[in-house]
């Protein structure tokens, strides 16, 4: 029995010859090999010209699996021999997420409201993850945003959005995506997010992160971040919109409350938002460009 120099992966096994193929006939996988052109190459390398000839007359508008069975001389009564476990799929509308993997801390209580301020002064009340990403969120500070909780952002990138140093840290590449001008560090008093977006009216006058979650998840698509988004703002400091209010109470790990109308945002919704918030703009603008 002649063996091919490379194998087909069928029924969880590496198949090198025709005999093993017939014994491990896997219609689903073979259909892919056939349509993709790899099967003909395998047969050609084996010198199986008669099978190649039969496969040459396959009617693409009919059931390919049956025709493959006939071409290989496998009884049409033999079902696919695959015995691997069919892994259960998640429902299309949900992502499989464990609460512990969300990077959201125990207290994780945030309020996204128009005139509310986030004045959590102790790390215990403000953690956004194991690395303390919303750490020590003193009034108008936003310190130590862990890498994993906001994909693509450097450590401590949300550093100190206080009145003086509201730099966006090492997230200059993030600024690049949304700025049409250049790649610059965002440094300004109380306007770190404002600089990021050309349409500042959407994101507040005092540099607030206005336009945040209003309790519903909306797609944050590359190029559409100037448009869709979120409603609400956070207060940076007294009199300035855009920060978060420390709350206490039983809201559950990683959940959020929009203070004005009590809308609750689940941790899952927030995670999806962060993924899109980070993935789409980043995807739009590449990486390592300004480091050349």
């Amino acid at each position: 029995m002649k063996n091919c120099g490379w194998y087909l992966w069928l029924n969880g096994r590496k198949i090198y010859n025709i005999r093993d193929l017939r014994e491990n006939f896997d219609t689903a996988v073979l259909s892919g090999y056939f349509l993709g052109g790899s099967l003909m190459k395998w047969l050609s390398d084996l010198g199986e010209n008669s099978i190649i000839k039969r496969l040459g007359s396959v009617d693409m508008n009919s059931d390919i699996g049956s025709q493959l069975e006939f071409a290989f001389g496998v009884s049409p009564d033999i079902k696919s021999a695959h015995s691997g476990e069919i892994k259960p799929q998640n429902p299309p509308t949900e992502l499989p997420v464990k609460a512990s993997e969300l990077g959201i801390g125990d207290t994780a209580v945030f309020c996204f409201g128009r005139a509310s301020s986030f004045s959590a002064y102790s790390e215990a009340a403000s953690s956004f993850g194991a690395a303390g990403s919303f750490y020590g969120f003193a009034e108008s500070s936003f310190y130590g945003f862990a890498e994993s909780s906001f994909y693509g952002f450097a450590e401590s990138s949300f550093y100190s959005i206080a009145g003086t140093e509201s730099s966006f840290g090492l997230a200059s590449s993030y600024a690049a995506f949304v700025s049409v001008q250049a790649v610059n560090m965002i440094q300004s008093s109380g306007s770190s997010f404002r600089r990021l977006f050309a349409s500042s009216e959407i994101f507040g006058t005092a540099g607030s992160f206005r336009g945040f979650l209003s309790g519903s998840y909306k797609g944050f698509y590359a190029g559409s971040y100037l448009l869709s988004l979120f409603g609400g703002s956070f207060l940076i400091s007294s009199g300035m919109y855009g920060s978060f209010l420390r709350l206490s109470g039983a809201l559950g790990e990683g959940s959020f409350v929009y203070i004005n109308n009590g809308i609750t945002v689940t941790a899952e919704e927030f995670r999806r938002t962060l993924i899109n918030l980070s993935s789409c703009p980043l995807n739009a603008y590449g990486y390592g460009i300004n480091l050349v």
Partner: protein
Amino acid sequence: MVTDRAAAEYYRKNGIDKAWDSVLELIPEDIEGIDPEMFWAAGKLIALRDIPQNAALIDEDLIVWNKTELSGKAVTVAHREYLSPDIYPDPRLFGVRGFPLLDRLDFGVLPCNTAFLHIPDDSFRMFYAGQSIAFMKAASENKCGDRLCRMVFAEQRLLAMLCELTGTDIVPLMDMDRLFIAQENYTHLWGAKQAMRDNEGLRAGFVNRCRERIRNDFPDHADLIGAIDECTK
């Protein structure tokens, strides 16, 4: 360089073909009947299937400034990607008929960015390329306006799923959570290509920096800069 006839002629005409040892015209004009708008990178998978000897596939918008060691067993990719539902929706929603393997795949596996791709096992390379091409052919039966989701599924998500299915390890060149941390090894234009098309200043700045780095790091190839400048006039 593995490409199609039109691109090969362009490279030769402008003297850019000297950047490579050879230029192979492996990608057919009709890309085997696959819809070229839905699957604009189909040629890459055909090339992967048909290359005469194993190689790393590198997209033209990924610059590898420094050589790296590659695994002799694991599949090496640029990096992983998150399962953003806007980019990677449930593939059953594509409504593709004629790709029965879909039912066996793990939808929770993180996709792989294949701007860089090295598959040391020729058999797995044929398996992945074949299944990907099969999906694209099956999906091309129902043309639609999707210019992203189906393509990235066929190329990037399917790779990760098939690795999971066969127990093949994946090694990323970069950590997806640290792509924007300063590093000097890789530049990936990715979506910035469009930004540079729209912004002459952005493009000029980047090109100038590339010229300087090429002159500095690869002086033997500095003459190619002139050839590129000529063909962009």
